[in-house]
């Protein structure tokens, strides 16, 4: 197992290299110039050219890539063109928000999605199942910006129970009560993702319910709860765990709408804003970071397969 994990970790290196070349090429292929964005509308072409020289953007693209790659290998991701701050600092400042949102939303997804999915499958075609199915269809189809703004209007503007937006850093202030800023965003994010997990858990379990060993378990008089949890739920987990892995990465990096609506300083918003500003060093570093996260989560999912299914482990 250890050898397998090491081999998988080593295989990440060429993938990251290819990813870095692709990202570097694509971002330089699209039109736009960070020097123009930085200087503004009124700058003359001469001033733009001068700033490009100062930022090293006048050099051939392969020279820029080699310099960047050499610096990255020394742990230096360069300086953000827009913020004039080290890229690592800019990304670190956003990671706290994204990790908090992802972990809290993920917990909500687990707490809502899996139990309801199990109940729906166990009570297949009952009124309760129909209610949960309808609810999950609604949650899956409601736009996140609409849900977010309505939750904000209700809980922040009308009842003044929760802050409307922003997220003061817990790491900087040490104040855990700042987590209240994340309640509405996490509910907004958990809604569609929970719906997905409800549908997936239910569907996977219904497939397993048809298996012979489930009929056997019932025939030998095993308690229905044991049949559902030990035989059906556990064997339907592979598809659910796989979806949960991607849900988690999506919650770290793919929450730009929710981050915008709640004005959260997260990774998703940083990606989009950096692309619009053509802040090349930030885009390059952050896409690599997200790619690495995807690869690591994939690895964890694969390892969990072996843990969940002894056939994979022994095979």
């Amino acid at each position, binding site marked *: 197992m250890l050898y397998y994990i090491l081999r998988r970790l080593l295989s990440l290196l060429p993938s990251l290299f290819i990813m870095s070349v692709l990202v570097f090429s694509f971002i330089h292929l699209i039109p*736009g110039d960070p020097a123009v964005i930085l200087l503004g*509308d*009124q700058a003359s072409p001469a*001033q733009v050219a001068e700033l490009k020289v100062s930022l090293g953007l006048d050099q051939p693209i392969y020279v820029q890539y080699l310099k960047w790659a050499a610096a990255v290998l020394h742990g230096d991701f360069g300086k953000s063109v827009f913020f004039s701050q080290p890229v690592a600092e800019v990304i670190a400042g956003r990671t706290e928000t994204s990790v908090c949102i992802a972990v809290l939303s993920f917990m909500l997804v687990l707490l809502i999605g899996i139990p309801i999915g199990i109940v729906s499958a166990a009570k297949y075609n009952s009124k309760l199942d129909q209610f949960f199915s309808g609810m999950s269809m609604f949650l899956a189809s409601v736009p996140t910006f609409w849900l977010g703004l309505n939750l904000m209007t209700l809980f922040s503007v009308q009842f003044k129970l929760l802050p*409307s*937006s922003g997220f003061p850093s817990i790491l900087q202030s040490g104040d855990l009560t700042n987590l209240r800023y994340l309640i509405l965003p996490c509910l907004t994010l958990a809604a569609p993702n929970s719906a997905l997990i409800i549908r997936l858990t239910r569907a996977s379990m219904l497939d397993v319910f048809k298996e012979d060993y489930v009929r056997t378990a019932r025939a030998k008089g095993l308690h229905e709860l044991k049949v559902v949890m030990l035989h059906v739920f556990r064997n339907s987990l592979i598809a659910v765990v796989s979806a949960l892995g991607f849900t988690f990465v999506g919650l770290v990096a793919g929450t730009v709408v929710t981050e915008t609506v709640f*004005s959260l300083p997260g990774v998703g918003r940083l990606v989009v804003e950096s692309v619009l500003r053509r802040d090349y060093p930030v885009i390059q570093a952050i896409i690599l970071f997200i790619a690495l996260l995807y690869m690591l989560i994939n690895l964890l999912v694969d390892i969990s397969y072996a843990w969940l299914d002894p056939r994979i482990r022994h095979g």
Partner: protein
Amino acid sequence: MFVNHRVCRGIGLLVVCLVLIIAGPVMAQGPKQGGTFRFAAIAESPHLDQHVTTSDPSTNIAQHVFECLFTYDSNYVPVPMLASGYQEKNGGKLIAINLRQGVKFHNGKEMTSEDVAASLTRWGKFGVRGPILFSHIDKVEADGKYKVNLYFKEPFGPWKALLALLNGGPAIYPKESVEGADAKPIPENKYIGTGPYKFVEQNPGRYALLERFKDYTGRTEPSDGDSGKRIAYFDKLMFIPVPDVGTRVNGVKAGDYDYAEQISGDLYDQLSTDATVKTYIRKGAIIGLMFFNSKAGPFKDNYKLRQAVLAAIDMTPALQAAIGPNNLWKANGSIAPAGTLWYTTAGTENYSQGSKSKAQTLAKEAGYNGEKITLMASQAYKFHYDSCVVIAKQLKDAGFNVDLQVYDWATLVSKRSDANQWDMFFTHHAYVTDPVLYTFMNAVYPGWWATKQKEDLASQFTQVLDPKQRLEIWNKIQTLFYEQVPVAKTGDIFSYDIASPKVDWVGAGAHLTWPRFWGTYFK
């Protein structure tokens, strides 16, 4: 009886005391110090180095930290700020600027002529707007501790207006902050100014924080526009990027922000009657502009075809669709907004005609045969796109083969620098106090309006010092503007902001171009 009298007197005194205790705070209501003011900004500020940026979010913050030699009063007239006065000598070829004495930088150092000369020199060489002034300047010289001399190659009328504009302008830094600085922004630890607030930190994605500068040495005249006394009532100012307009509005209503900028026009009617917020319309109008390509394509040297396009457009529906309520826009053909110094009706009979037949006649005379006309717009600014949808429809109805291409802002800015990629593009211009600052007056700005007539008039316009004569020349330039049509102006557009009802201002003209918060306090 005596006892009763004393008792009555005692009760009377008690009542007076109670009244004073209860009414005291009410009677004493007025400007008071304290509190943290939270400003919900439309976007993140890149940096605060005003020499090298014209970013509005940056100036919103920086105007509290940095000051210029001059500033604007509520009528946009440049008046001394860090300067105490000036003399024009040699027919305007030497401007001697006297500095106020005892002005402290945030690092405790006194501002002297060396700091001013170093700041002006760096701005003149690397600043965004610096070369507009410095292409006319031979030399800047520190003359003693409190005087700076500007030696001009020839008289230059708008010098004071350029020295008063902080956005992309000559903020005064200590000499140490700008020595060796180039086109790159100076680092945060060099954000040292003379303003009523000093820079504390910028936390990307979260906020930029300023705090009151206790040793601020401001002017003593009454506050008027951005001029005069600048009293910092708030302890701290916090500028928070909140990109979504719905969140900015909800945030002010929920009490999470005290002020939110640039709210969309479709919410104006609802918010202006909402007791939980106050609306403020900014005085400085921005103008919508559609540039024509003078360098390549069908509009090159073809003024008649540009006149045909202009004749086809009725600006009113474009403004209605893009902005909304009538009090947030004005269909005004004068380049400068109504009520300002440079307002003139010269040539405006050709503005907003909306005449298909005239457009078709002019297009035929211009030799137009249905060639494709590319119009570039960006959705980064919603009103750009909305205006262009209406304009493109009107042009198609008049027989023009218009191809509306929509890009993100960075792509549009990149494409427009290549004359072969476009025929028209849409943008806007912030309010400027002197026409020399309009982008279309700059021959190297995309659009490239550089005809001999225009260059001659522009040269006369900058060399004349007398305001009356300058206005006469500006009339001629605007007439030429409607003949050669380098740009089609859509109209004047007024942004508006909202604030919590507990926020109040001292003095008039607090909402010129960039909302500022000295003289602002919590009621």
